[in-house]
């Protein structure tokens, strides 16, 4: 199976304003796929649709080779899911919650669960409802990992957690991914966090997937150029010009996409000069992409 998740022409509507239309998304097996997007863009809804928690109006969803929602229980046995909000029984203690979960997953690894329990420093006798936000987050990640899934679907797992807890949670995640070739589908709006380990990036905005590319292409694709002596209206550049601002004197700053190094020749041809090519980090690239996508230039 080449794709862990395959979504084809997904259509869903909620209320009068929110709609997901013609969504095509593929997550290659073994990839760590970062799912970015502002709040309300439809990330959580897409995740819920992908796992069969919601019914789409149209479209085909295949996860780990099986169709959703027909084979959802069979698929979910191999998927570790961390939802956006804490969803567990508030009355059960940490230890009881582990026992509950273990009963449902045949691949549950008790030795590893115990090790993570110690690593996360969770209080076994505390009821889930009384745990702090960070402890809840850690426990939910523990549950997702201890069942030894093939696919991890994480909906903003570090949202609202302090930096120390975030590190712990992500370390455990990457530790697992190093052990076995699991696929990770992680949504977040902490862009700088995803930057470190994702090898694919999908960006969602307003119910649509506006880009889905390997990380390197996303990072390297958007650049800031320092140009001097640029003409007012450049004709048909080989890259996508996203924005252009004057800097000082005759120099300008251009924001471009799909840049490649040999494109400096283009500037020579129009009588301009490229003084510098600056990389944008993922966060800036993401912000610029959204900005230009929302107000496209002619």
């Amino acid at each position: 199976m080449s794709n862990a998740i395959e979504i084809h022409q997904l259509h869903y509507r909620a209320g009068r304003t929110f709609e997901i239309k013609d969504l095509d998304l593929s997550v290659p097996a073994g990839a760590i796929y970062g799912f970015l997007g502002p709040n309300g863009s439809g990330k959580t809804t897409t995740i819920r649709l992908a796992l069969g928690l919601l019914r789409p109006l149209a479209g085909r969803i295949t996860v780990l080779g099986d169709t959703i929602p027909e084979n959802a229980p069979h698929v979910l046995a191999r998927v570790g899911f961390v939802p956006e909000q804490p969803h567990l029984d508030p009355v059960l203690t940490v230890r009881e919650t582990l026992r509950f979960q273990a009963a449902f997953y045949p691949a549950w690894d008790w030795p590893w669960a115990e090790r993570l329990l110690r690593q996360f420093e969770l209080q076994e006798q505390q009821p889930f409802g009384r745990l702090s936000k960070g402890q809840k987050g850690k426990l939910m990640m523990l549950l997702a990992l201890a069942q030894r899934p093939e696919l991890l679907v994480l909906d903003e797992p570090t949202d609202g957690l302090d930096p120390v807890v975030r590190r712990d949670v992500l370390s455990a995640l990457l530790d697992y991914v190093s052990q076995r070739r699991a696929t990770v589908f992680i949504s977040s709006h902490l862009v700088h966090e995803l930057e470190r380990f994702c090898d694919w990036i999908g960006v969602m905005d307003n119910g649509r997937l506006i880009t889905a590319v390997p990380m390197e292409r996303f990072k390297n694709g958007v650049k800031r150029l320092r140009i001097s002596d640029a003409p007012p209206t450049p004709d048909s550049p080989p890259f996508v010009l996203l924005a252009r601002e004057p800097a000082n004197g005759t120099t300008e700053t251009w924001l471009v996409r799909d840049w490649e190094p040999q494109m400096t020749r283009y500037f020579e041809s129009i009588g301009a000069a490229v003084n510098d090519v600056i990389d944008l980090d993922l966060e800036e690239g993401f912000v610029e992409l959204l900005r230009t996508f929302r107000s496209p230039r002619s």
Partner: protein
Amino acid sequence: MFRVMLYSQWKWCRLIVVLGSVAGFALPLVSVQGAARADSSPLQAGELLQAVQSWGTLYPVLAAALGLLVAIATWAPDHRGRHVHALSLPVPRWRYVLLRFGAGATLLAAPVIAVTAGALLAAWGATIPAGLQGYPVALAIRFALAVLVAYAVFFAVSAGTARTAGIILGLIGGVILVQIIAGVANIDLDLFGRVQVLVLNWPGPLAIFTGRWMLIDV
């Protein structure tokens, strides 16, 4: 899977189940107090039947209360988490519902057994006047069925979204309100009587709640 479900159910319901069992055990015994006399005049028989009948009205109330409370407690964690956990578990929905139902029903066995024990003890311990007979087993069975019916009905109501459950409870509340207002305004309106006649006397499982609950009868 059933074991962990039962355990989590127990954690939510234990107070209800324990109190219900205590009440269920005590009820038959309380209803026959004063029947220890050896001589059995018709007057005493009449008194006994009166006592048994008036206490007997509590059986359907207890059954309904147990059914309601255990059903609500069964679905409480799912409502809190908006069913996300249940839907993300690798079991088909129907199986999950069945597990929940079974767990609640298993816990309800305790008050049923308590009533059975109390009824048997009461019928055996009391000196029953001539002409009357004890029906502890029949009573216990009736109680068990009433609990089951109440539980099943409230379970089905609670299994829906919080919204549907709220709507249904809201409707009931609305009817009560109308009845109260009618009573205050001295309007002769008997909504509950009508509904009661419709729902309870209609040959169906709810009929089990009507009539007299007699531990000792002719």
